[in-house]
């Protein structure tokens, strides 16, 4: 589908972007859309920091010897790559940017339930971010993003406390966002917007918010305990002080496994919207897709010790966590099947958001299926803590979560910015990201099965060729990520003005001008239709025939 260009904008309408000018109007805004943009800028900044670390890691691994940086530097690079990407990019990414922007509009509200708390959450994020930057610039931290004890509490001589406190603060930002979404979704739906009519993007964010609210306090407590043990020598995790190092791992993964779902569920929501729109269809099995999000959120809390099969837990505990891990795989599989079935007898368009959605489904499928390998106790003994794991979770978090984020950014960019992005470049970028991603991470599955451990600064020479392929892929991937950044910026100035609904998409956010006015809707919407009523939309558009190019 091409973007309809027929609509001519009247002389600039008042909207959320041009209503006020000046730094103060942004820094003290309580408009969820402006806060979304503040988040967009901040997480993009951290994404490029994390990406820069990744590039240095890949360059170091180009040769078996440790030659580009010092061993300690390398350890800090992978530690902070993980911390920045997880806590400062992936966890806030879709919820804090697209969720912030879209949740109120999709449910037909003027703003989130607590606009000031929403702003507070951004400030907490910024405080946490400054602490993390300060930590990096004054020496950094080398514990791995996982902070395993007793290394983090008694042996590392880097800035563990500062990094821990930074993530502690970032956690509150995440909790507040989740809280805001839950209350908004419960209390602020427009008349007629029943639970069964909510876009699945909202269901995904609802499930995500539950995890953020229930899980994040646990990592906060855990990090406080790490800080307390490190600073005050309380014996919680260090066996020399009478503590138990495995207790840390239980607590850490109790949050950090569900955190994977914080990263992937919103992406699933985005992809669901895109697939429905670009195949012009209702989502196949709406209620199954909705409930599978909730099922993932619930089961996600019961599988944490599958990170610990070789850590020294009992055989029986391992059996229970293995079987529960397979249980959580079922709702994910259900989603993939429903997306695929949605395409059946659709009317499919190949615009950039849809290319990202296809990429998401493919890469998420591979990431999910390799999760089956890791949940299998007998195989995990071999591949645990090797590059197999690295490849697996990058397929989920980068191939999945990041593809979804980029797809969503393209899909809603016209709404957010009021401008159209250049479609040809966007399709090219989607292709480059897909190819670069696979070249980077597929060789790592093989490396992992061959036995190359993760977090290795130098490695035996027989692993070199696969590492070279991976590094080559990373450079391609970097190009793929820089392109959207460039043409999005370009489009803000030179892009064609976007019509209100360039994709002829369903959803309340498209029934308001692009960019939307400060309070989203000129009058409160009343919903009388089901979600994804593409048949009605297309039937209404049929007489004048939508101009079609793509």
């Amino acid at each position, binding site marked *: 589908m091409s973007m309809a260009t027929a609509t001519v904008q009247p002389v600039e309408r008042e909207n959320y972007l041009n209503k006020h000018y000046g730094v103060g109007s942004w820094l003290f805004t309580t408009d969820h859309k402006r806060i979304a943009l503040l988040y967009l800028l901040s997480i993009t900044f951290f994404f490029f920091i994390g990406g820069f670390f990744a590039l240095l890691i890949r360059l170091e691994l180009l040769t078996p010897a440790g030659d580009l940086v010092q061993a300690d530097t390398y350890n800090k690079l992978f530690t902070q790559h993980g911390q920045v990407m997880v806590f400062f990019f992936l966890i806030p990414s879709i919820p804090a940017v697209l969720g912030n922007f879209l949740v109120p509009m999709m449910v037909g509200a003027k703003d989130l339930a607590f606009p000031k708390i929403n702003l507070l959450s951004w400030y907490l994020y910024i405080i946490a971010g400054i602490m993390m930057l300060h930590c990096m610039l004054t020496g950094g931290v080398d514990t791995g993003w996982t902070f395993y004890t007793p290394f983090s509490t008694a042996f590392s001589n880097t800035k563990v406390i500062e990094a821990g406190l930074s993530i502690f603060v970032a956690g509150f930002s995440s909790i507040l966002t989740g809280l805001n979404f839950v209350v908004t979704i419960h209390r602020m739906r427009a008349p007629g917007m029943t639970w069964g009519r909510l876009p699945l993007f909202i269901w995904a964010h609802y499930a995500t918010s539950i995890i953020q609210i229930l899980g994040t306090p646990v990592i906060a407590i855990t990090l406080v305990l790490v800080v307390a043990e490190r600073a005050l020598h309380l014996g919680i995790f260090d066996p020399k002080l009478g503590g138990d190092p495995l207790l840390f791992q239980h607590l850490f993964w109790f949050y950090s496994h569900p955190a994977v779902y914080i990263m992937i569920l919103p992406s699933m929501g985005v992809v669901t919207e895109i697939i429905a729109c670009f195949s012009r269809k209702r989502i196949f099995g709406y209620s199954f897709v909705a409930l599978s999000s909730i099922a993932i959120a619930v089961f996600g809390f019961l599988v944490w010790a599958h990170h610990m099969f070789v850590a020294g837990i009992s055989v029986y505990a391992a059996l229970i966590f293995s079987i529960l891990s397979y249980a959580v795989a079922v709702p994910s599989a259900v989603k993939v099947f429903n997306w695929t079935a949605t395409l059946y007898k659709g009317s499919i368009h190949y615009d950039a958001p849809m290319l990202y959605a296809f990429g998401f489904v*493919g890469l998420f499928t591979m990431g999910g299926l390799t999760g089956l390998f890791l949940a299998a106790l007998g195989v995990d003994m071999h591949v645990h803590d090797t590059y197999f794991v690295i490849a697996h979770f990058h397929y989920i978090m980068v191939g999945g979560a990041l593809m979804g984020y980029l797809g969503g950014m393209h899909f809603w960019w016209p709404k957010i910015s009021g401008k159209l992005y250049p479609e040809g470049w966007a399709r090219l970028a989607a292709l480059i990201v897909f190819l670069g991603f696979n070249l980077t991470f597929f060789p790592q599955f093989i490396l992992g099965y061959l036995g190359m451990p*993760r977090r290795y600064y130098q490695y035996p020479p027989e692993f070199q060729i696969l590492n070279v392929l991976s590094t080559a892929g990373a450079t391609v991937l970097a190009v793929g990520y820089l392109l959207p950044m460039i043409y999005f910026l370009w489009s803000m100035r030179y892009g064609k003005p976007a019509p209100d609904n360039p994709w002829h998409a369903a959803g309340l956010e498209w029934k308001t001008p692009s960019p939307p006015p400060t309070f989203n809707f000129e009058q409160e919407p009343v919903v009388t239709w089901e979600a994804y009523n593409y048949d009605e939309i297309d039937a209404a558009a049929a007489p004048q025939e939508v101009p079609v190019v793509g």
Partner: protein
Amino acid sequence: MFDNFPLWPERASTAAGNVDALFIFLLIVSGLMTLLIFISLLYFAARYRHRKGVPAEQIEGSIPLEITWSIIPLGVFMVIFAWGAVVYFKSRTPPRDSTEVYVVAKQWMWKLEHAEGQREINELHVPVGRDVKLIMTSQDVIHSFFVPAFRMKQDVVPGRYTVAWFRATKAGTYHLFCTQYCGTQHSGMIGSIVVMEPAQYEAWMSGGSNGPLSATGEKIFAELGCATCHRSDTQGRGPNLQGVFGKPVLLEDGRLVTADENYVRESILDPGAKIVKGFRPVMPTFQGLISDEQLNALVAYVKSLSGPGQAGANTSAAAAAPQSAPGKGSQVQ
């Protein structure tokens, strides 16, 4: 060229074949699932691409289909789970009469001591075709003992023993990697497992040794005065240790525990944690007074008191279980 570019790891233990078989099964299953999804995606994408005047056909969903594609994957997953569990269980259960090697990990080296007394650093010599049980602990942070060719990995945790075992099937030298990040030289904490034919191994073993580990342990036992209380009759203030190892022990609080390596270790370092029924908590702690190597020797000695052939019995699951190890502290402090 393929020396430099292997695509499959070497297979040199009895476990390796089991792990590979399951891995190949998983490759086939997930390959088929990937094909199913990809082919459907591509076929639908091509077949149902937008054409002017051909609207999409709205389909709400189908409960039979939803049930089908939940139940079938669940069934397949359960097969994988069960298979994985069997392979894992086997690898976590050292056979009786395994040859024992004590492993002490520290930043950034592996110290290995054979029950017969040979000591090695970053290198372990073992014979083809014999079960070798590793009884491992760490002096500092968590490490992990990983031999890719054996498909075997176990974290090595400070403050307790973890156990692993293997039976090598092919002579050769194989990588030993530390796979739990442990600081600056993590990637330098590597070594090799040298698997030898039995005859060569015997020759190697006859080289320098300080005598069996249990004999060292006996000496330490005497030096520390353990024998004053742990007498070989029933008159001691502490339990008689003859024949205790590998057997169930009834505790003062009514629990029944198995006297495995972790139990003995804990009883030396934190004697108050588990009091044997009928005894009083009078033993002083040896925490900080003896090294991990001395501790290993003492454990080997206590084990030897239960006679040959008893040592490896009944320890497997319990040795890996946290409940027998970390619950220290409360009673003592």
